[in-house]
């Protein structure tokens, strides 16, 4: 069984990203970049399926500029068997990315696609659902548990009211939530080995996807700062302030 794992290059999640001076975009110069944490969870799940004898090949795919090679090498060091970089210098939106992934899906015919539910940069939470729609594959979002039984998959999802379990035949699309697993770190020998694993390069144009910048960013600002409040000495003062100053209880 083949598993396709889309990988997004984003800022390291510990970095607080700020607007640039002109307020036209975020300032990512000198910001440490990494694999989107949710994509890492997707990859980890695929590696576990492979280790459990349920998968034979893991293909990592990234869409973006040359720098995405770094994140694909990370994916290869973690356990992906090979990688595909679909190159573009344009800033793609989720709909564009999902169209590119459809082309890669058609080319590779994987049995399962696992992807992060959201990129921690744009906070869109769209690509998996759009990809599922465009491929007419069953859609299972926000997974916290994945169990493979033959040609069926049973997935527990995190929803606003609690948990929900869905079942689907394969092929299917799963998007990952935080608690699906805890990703491993790449070992040094595996980082070395990853350098020799195949990394194929294609272009968005070669795949015949027309990129349409339909939503443009006019301005990026810092949110209004909250004024730092006061420290209270004890519980009595706290209760008094909440009653008489803030008037919230």
């Amino acid at each position: 069984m083949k598993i396709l794992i889309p990988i997004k290059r984003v800022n390291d999640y510990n970095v607080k990203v700020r607007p640039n001076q002109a307020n036209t975009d975020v300032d990512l110069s000198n910001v440490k970049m990494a694999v989107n944490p949710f994509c890492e969870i997707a990859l980890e799940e695929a590696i576990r399926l492979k280790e459990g004898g349920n998968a034979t090949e893991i293909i990592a795919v990234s869409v973006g500029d040359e720098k995405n090679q770094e994140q694909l090498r990370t994916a290869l060091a973690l356990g992906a068997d090979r990688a595909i970089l679909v190159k573009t210098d344009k800033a793609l939106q989720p709909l564009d990315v999902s169209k590119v992934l459809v082309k890669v899906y058609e080319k590779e015919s994987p049995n399962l696609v696992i992807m992060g539910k959201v990129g921690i940069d744009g906070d869109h939470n769209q690509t998996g659902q759009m990809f599922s729609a465009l491929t007419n594959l069953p859609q299972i979002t926000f997974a916290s548990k994945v169990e493979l039984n033959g040609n069926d998959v049973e997935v527990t999802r995190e929803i606003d009211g609690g948990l929900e379990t869905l079942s689907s035949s394969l092929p299917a699309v799963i998007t990952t939530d935080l608690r699906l697993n805890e990703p491993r770190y790449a070992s040094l020998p595996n980082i070395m080995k990853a350098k020799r694993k195949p990394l194929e390069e294609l272009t968005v144009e070669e795949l015949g996807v027309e990129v349409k910048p339909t939503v443009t960013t006019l301005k990026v600002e810092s949110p209004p700062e909250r004024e730092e409040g006061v420290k209270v000495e004890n519980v009595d003062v706290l209760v008094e302030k909440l009653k008489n100053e803030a008037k919230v209880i």
Partner: protein
Amino acid sequence: MTKILVLAEHDNNSLSGATLSVTKAAEMLGDEIDLICTTSNISNLEAEISTLTSVKKVHVFEDKIFENEIAENTVDCLIAVSDDYDYFLASSSTSGKNIMPRFAGLMDIQQISEVIEVVDGSTFKKPIYAGACIATVKTEQSRNVLTIRTTSFDKTSTDGGSAEFVKHDLPANNTNKPTFVKNELTVSDRPELTSADIVVSGGRGMQNSDNFKLLEGIATKLNAAIGASRAAVDSGFAPNDYQVGQTGKSVAPNLYVAVGISGAIQHLAGMKDSKTIVAINKDEEAPIFKVADYGLVADLFEALPELESKL
């Protein structure tokens, strides 16, 4: 004439408060507002939906397949009535997040997620990078799909309306989809987390799930909902649906009490729009104090019982 379609969110028994906020956002786009309601039992919802003053028409798809939400089923219905509409709106709940991008994909529309402000009919504000920045985005599309962060909008008027209910047959389709197996929903007598006036949240500092229960006495006295940081949920102190933050729920209550929460940016993203914030933490350097109106540096195991007794 600008026409807007709002996805009604409900549990087949009552309408979600989120729909009232989404309808309010819709009013900023135009005054021809219709609802779409896919449900296993419209008679449970009809009276409540009829109170929405600004809604003109309700597209009803009633069938037992809607007992549980499968995105594919809802999207097939959205597509079936989509022809007349310029905007399609839902909340950024897990339901809206599951359904709307799928619909947008099939409509070849680039969705705009988590809208916090409608600047004009084509310009919107939305948080990016876990709320570290706010982007103003402009769409050049003639038809748009938006998900709405409900804590940023008031609720629409429910003084009574005159909406016409139009029943539709289920669309015929051959969509591949998963099947429902089971759910485990958290049952609580407390107010719902995203619409509560007061939220009391616990973090890693609570140490274990027994201690986490210390929040219950205070929550009961304040009629508050209980929330949690990601660390507390990951550690199993609280169920997943308690999580407040970038990947959990966004809340903006009148009072948010953060207990034993350090204040990672991902948590702040989900609560910093609260009107008044209280932080109780023994680490006076904790970043949560930077956003708190009232900070109490204290051992929470001493402060919580005392606070409960004095409320």
